[in-house]
């Protein structure tokens, strides 16, 4: 936007109104998000879209309670009205009263996590060219590919956050994604493959990670799945692939360490800081400061600088992930993990980029050590039950391992397990740690935010594979 839609003086008046009836903390989250996207299917660009969402939300926090109201009409009158509605929570709980600190002048983020200079969405010609290159490469790489779908998104999010403790910050976060889906077919058999990448950068990213590379990878996975055999059912020794396998850390451990669940005491990790929760070779971090990763930001959606949090260190539980509200209630500082989908949503404690550092076992040694097992090279997604820690993952590319050798591919099976149980069964950690391709999105409480994951190959002594073939 050419001008800041929120000024320090205006924000001050909104915060003053928000705290007039009581409350311990208030903030104004103002956002302008503009997105261009294009989708290719059946050899042609099928649809192009432009969207722009501009609005602001006002929050009042009292103890564990939050009042909220948003508006798409950014006149001061409407914002003050929203502040009044958010303040209703303070009238209900009638405790706590602070006055808003005088706001500092707007502080613009300047670190080197990503490029903030770009103020305009990418030109449509650039998006179109990427999609067309992906289509051509996918079809050329595998004759059995019968359909190619590709999409590209370029987004700019500008945000202004004013808080009652005096902080007033601005950031401009870019995000691009290019994804290619291929369907391979032989008779009635079909196989699907997907590959995507991007991050907080510009479309220039696809100069080094090319659309051709992504397309060929999607086509390769599609044909692997076309030739795959039905997966067996039962418990197997399992290797979880490097990079995208990090979804395992995200689901099996990360969610259970989010501050809201632990403050309420509903996570199985509640009250267990300092205890052993995983085998000694397991260390897990969450970090919002990795350059250009999807989960990175100079400051989170509450204006708190993002941190590097040790979640698990050599099997010992070290920390939770916090936003302002839960950190206050647990008497600690926010770790910079307060995130929200948009100005229409309240912040929640969420992961940024969750990863495990490398161990020392080479992949071929790990494969050779498995007698009868599964190599789950990548996942299509996962889900977890916070209280019990049970999780599922859908395998996007997986293989049998028989007598130390990689065998046939298995068709899209599901792995089920229990987080803490699986973490104590990690028996080897690969030397091949890497961050996954950047395309993951995490859903929680109806809100979706971009995240990053990363991991070396892990060996887990037993996991349940939900196949269709009796063992």
């Amino acid at each position: 936007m050419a001008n800041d839609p929120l000024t320090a003086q205006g924000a001050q008046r909104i915060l003053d109104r928000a705290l007039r009836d009581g409350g311990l903390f208030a903030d104004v989250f103002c956002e302008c998000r503009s997105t261009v996207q294009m989708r290719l299917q059946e050899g042609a660009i099928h649809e192009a879209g432009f969207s722009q969402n501009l609005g602001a939300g006002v929050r009042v926090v009292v103890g564990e309670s939050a009042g909220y109201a948003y508006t798409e009409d950014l006149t001061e009158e409407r914002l003050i009205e929203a502040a009044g509605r958010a303040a209703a929570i303070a009238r209900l709980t009638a405790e706590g009263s602070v006055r808003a600190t005088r706001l500092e002048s707007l502080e613009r983020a300047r670190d080197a996590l990503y490029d903030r200079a770009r103020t305009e969405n990418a030109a449509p010609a650039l998006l179109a060219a990427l999609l067309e290159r992906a289509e051509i490469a996918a079809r050329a790489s595998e004759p059995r590919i019968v359909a190619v779908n590709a999409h590209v998104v370029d987004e700019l999010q500008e945000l202004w956050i004013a808080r009652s403790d005096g902080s007033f910050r601005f950031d401009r976060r870019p995000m691009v994604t290019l994804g290619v889906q291929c369907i391979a077919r032989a008779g009635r058999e079909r196989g699907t493959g997907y590959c995507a990448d991007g991050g907080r950068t510009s479309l220039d990213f696809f100069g080094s990670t090319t659309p051709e590379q992504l397309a060929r990878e999607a086509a390769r996975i599609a044909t692997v799945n076309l030739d795959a055999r039905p997966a067996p059912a039962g418990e197997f020794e399992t290797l979880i692939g490097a990079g995208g396998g990090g979804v395992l850390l995200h689901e099996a451990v990360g969610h259970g360490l989010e501050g809201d669940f632990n403050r309420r005491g509903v996570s199985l990790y509640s009250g267990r800081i300092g205890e052993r929760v995983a085998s000694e070779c397991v260390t897990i971090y969450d970090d919002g400061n990795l350059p250009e990763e999807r989960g990175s930001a100079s400051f989170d959606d509450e204006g708190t600088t993002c941190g590097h949090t040790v979640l698990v260190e050599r099997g010992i539980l070290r920390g939770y992930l916090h936003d302002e509200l839960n950190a206050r209630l647990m008497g600690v500082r926010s770790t910079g993990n307060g995130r929200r989908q948009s100005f229409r949503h309240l912040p929640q404690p969420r992961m940024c980029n969750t990863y495990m550092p490398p161990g020392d076992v080479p992949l071929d040694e790990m494969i050779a050590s498995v007698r009868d097992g599964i190599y789950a090279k990548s996942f299509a997604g996962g889900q977890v039950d916070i209280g019990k820690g049970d999780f599922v993952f859908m395998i996007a590319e997986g293989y049998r391992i028989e007598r130390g050798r990689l065998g046939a591919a298995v068709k899209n099976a599901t792995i089920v397990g229990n987080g803490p149980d699986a973490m104590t069964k990690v028996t080897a950690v690969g030397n091949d740690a890497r961050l996954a391709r950047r395309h993951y999105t995490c859903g929680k409480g109806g809100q979706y935010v971009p995240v990053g994951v990363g991991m070396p190959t892990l060996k887990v002594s037993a996991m349940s594979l939900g196949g269709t073939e009796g063992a």
Partner: protein
Amino acid sequence: MREEEARERARRAVEIALAAGASDAEARIVLARRFNAQARGERITKLDASDGRSLSMRLFLDGRKATLAGTHWSDEEIRAGVTSALEQARYVGVDSYAGLPDPCALPDRRLDLYDESIENRDDDERLDDVRNVERSIRATDARIDNSNGSSYHDACVTMALANSRGALGSYRGTQAALSTSPVASEGAYRRTAHYGDASRFLSRLDAPDAVAREAVRRTVAFCGATKPPTQTTAIVFDREVAAALLADLFAACNAANVAVGNSWLAGRIGERVGSDLLEIYDDGTIPGALGSSPFDDEGVPTQRTTVFERGTLRSFLFDTYYARRLGARSTGNASGGGIGPNTFFLAPGKQTPEALVAATARGILVMETIGFATEHASGLYSRGARGIMIRDGELAESIEEFTIAAPFPEILAGIDAVANDLKFDGSIAAPSFRVAEMQVSGSLSAP
């Protein structure tokens, strides 16, 4: 008059788009007044009351399509957005099927979608409902010692649509929902379940204590659950889980997936793919149902479509674009730029779910599934699950940490009993049903 204002804005947006060079245009405006409250323990922990508005447009430029979405409201904002979208449209391939629906009058049907008592509801009453759910879960069962919170939500929504072929219409709808997530501690574990009810009418919404009781039943059912052995057995899908399975089936019936070969049902119209009991409809005309509306998101009147009739695939579900491509008529399923369900449901049987369990010699009543990626191209279903073993028609021990899996055609062909507990509490609904045999993957040991 909010409804009048919305129609006028939609009509004006179309006018602006034509002036900016679009050959055809459609505008849809949604105004929503939403109220959200959450209680936990004795406190209201969340209170969110907002008036929202949004504009979505489809613009056509000589057979090329582009979309515009967002918070654009003033003439200038709309003009700027349309200009950006049209600039992009120039890169889209010309598609002779792309375009607005053939002109037809938007029906002014009375579908019983609006409850004045939701619009006029007092905030204190709303907060009482959510407090009562939260109190009831703790009072219902001593094992419930915590909660993830209970929620009340309601919304009054106005939808207005206009297009450059003369369509101009609007309707209003309400919805209210109550839900809760009780927690029972069991050693280091916390047992949680989530349950809720939703309706267009306050008077038809389950009472707070009924919501609480059902949520508690679903939470404590799994205390002491064990991992079952790997086996093949009958599976009874509880109605909540049955609806989730139907959501996967909807994706395979979605003409957009069919057209690009991303559905295992492609090319099978007229084929028998399920048992006699597989009777599935999509219906946008059920009075008072959450999934009902007089017309879809591109202004095509909604209808009742027979999708499966006694196991035979009769129709896919279409918007105007895919209907033209596949030589069919729109079934009134245009939704948010794609194809979505009105009320997509499995026809109920006669027996109660309890009778269905009693008539099952051996099997598993599945009450929760987790996971979401079904391969629509190959039709393979695989989910993590929780449930209760059925032995000699009786519910026995609870089990968890297993998966159920089968190819979709085998699931549909295997449906051998359907219960009578269908409830239109969402746009996809199903009664409990039984599949004769599925692969269950659990622990290694034999039964």
